[in-house]
């Protein structure tokens, strides 16, 4: 629990000048949405294997050390393994009986349950990986600019697009800060003799409350401080007639169009493979 930040890379940004980093944020967001939609739809192993190949290709394009990315996913995968065990044990379907391996009371382990849970969790891992990669290769400002540009038509409906995007971006900024805060609080509690992994469930929940309550308090204080600091630098959200300018203009290049076409093709391929493949 104590060295959490070493195991989570979500919300970090690495400017290594890779092709993925250089893509227009609008293209990256659109590609991300298309691929995520396809990954959410697929369920067969053949399409999941194709998805794995695509992720490896993205990993190569990003020029990020695989170890760094995997290390960032370690805690999430540990959590997912626990979830996997529950999914398998409590899986129920009308055709399950034929493939049952072990049964005790309400708990059942069946081949069908294992396969279904594996497929679901692989999809979740791919979604987490794609989201992490988007964050690792796009700065928050680019992400905000890209999302704002794509959502601009919604302004005509009276939606405060800029403010919504800023809220999202600030929330993302707080991910690594809150992780560091959890780490600090864990150390503070551990030095006072609190043991997080010991005792019955009630004792464990009580130990965790020593982190969660101060985490909320410090989170709220940080939000207040940040909003004050932003206002002190003339950030005027919701102020009529105020318009921010931008340091960087968004440029849509051929590589962005190519990325979009490739993502659409991959999406079609994943869905087609999922329809024709028996597994």
């Amino acid at each position, binding site marked *: 629990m104590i060295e959490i930040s070493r195991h989570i890379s979500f919300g970090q*940004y690495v400017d290594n000048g890779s092709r993925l980093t250089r893509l227009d944020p609008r293209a990256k967001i659109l590609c991300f949405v298309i691929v995520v939609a396809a990954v959410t739809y697929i369920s067969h192993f053949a399409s999941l294997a194709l998805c794995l190949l695509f992720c490896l290709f993205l990993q190569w394009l990003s020029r990020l050390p695989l170890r760094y990315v995997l290390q960032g996913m370690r805690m999430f995968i540990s959590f997912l393994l626990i979830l996997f065990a529950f999914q398998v044990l409590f899986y129920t379907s009308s055709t399950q009986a034929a493939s049952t391996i072990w049964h005790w009371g309400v708990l059942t382990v069946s081949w069908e349950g294992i396969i279904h849970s594996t497929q679901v969790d692989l999809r979740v891992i791919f979604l987490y990986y794609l989201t992490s990669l988007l964050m690792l290769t796009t700065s*928050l*400002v680019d992400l905000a600019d890209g999302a704002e540009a794509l959502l601009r038509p919604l302004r005509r409906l009276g939606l405060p697009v800029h403010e919504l995007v800023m809220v999202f971006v*600030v929330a993302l900024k707080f991910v690594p800060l809150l992780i560091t805060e959890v780490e600090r609080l864990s150390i503070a509690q551990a030095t006072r003799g609190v043991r997080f992994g010991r005792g019955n469930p009630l004792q464990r929940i009580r130990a965790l409350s020593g982190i969660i309550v101060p985490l909320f308090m410090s989170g709220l204080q*940080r939000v207040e401080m940040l909003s004050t600091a932003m206002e002190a630098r*003339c950030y005027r959200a919701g102020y009529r007639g105020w318009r*921010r*300018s931008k340091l960087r203009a968004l440029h849509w290049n051929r590589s962005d169009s190519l990325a979009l076409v490739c993502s659409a093709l991959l999406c079609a391929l994943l869905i087609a493979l999922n329809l024709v493949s028996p597994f």
Partner: protein
Amino acid sequence: MIEVNNVTFRYSGEAEEDIAPALAGVTLRIDEGETIALIGHNGSGKSTLARLLAAILLPQQGSVIVDGLRTDAGGESLWQIRQTVGLVFQNPDDQLVANTVIDEIAFGPENLGLPRFEIEERVEEVLDLLDLRPHAHRAVSDLSQGQKQRLAVAGVLAMRPRYLILDEPTTMIPGRTAEQLLETVRRLARERGISVLHITHHMHELVDFDRVIVMDRGRVLLDGTPANVLRHREELERAGLGLPLITQLGQRLRARGWSQLPEVLLTLDDLKAALCSLK
């Protein structure tokens, strides 16, 4: 010029009779180009005064006037004041919005709606001023605490304020880094005519400033040159502040018969010069 006229401020929730106000009848003036150290114990009202000067808080009694504009006038003048008075917070993590150095510096100028070429010009300028050029494309999360604090100052300086308020910026950074930061700020004040109000509770930091204001329980206790302020040893001790080590050493030497030494010594160089001049 900033004029603070008989300002009283209470935080909401404070019972008027039971708890003393954060600021009570404070009157002072800050001229252009002055470098001031604002010193006081915790809860003396230093940070509240800083926020009132930067128009983050508004006075409940009295007035704060920045270059002829009242902070409580509202409307466009509020934003003009926030542009004129730059505020740097104690913890840079509370202030930094973006996740790369360049984006962070550009955040303020972007809020001012400046054209792109001017934002670029300002970013380039402060990168050099604060020695941040080698880190220009780095992620903010990868910077050391001292580099983050320099970045926080850079972000404010990019808005070209006429008054720079530093709210205990040296609290979270090591001694040598803190000295370098203060030296940079004083150099900027000299070269650009920016007024600097440095809030601190480290007595040794006040010796290089033109003027020192000591606050105690929401009131201005002392106001004068460092040498004049340090003559009031008893008042300072009553306010929970001790003399800098060199000043203490000078006074002890005087008490032991070295009566030719000046009453107040500010720096090691002063002490060396005074000792060398003795026959």
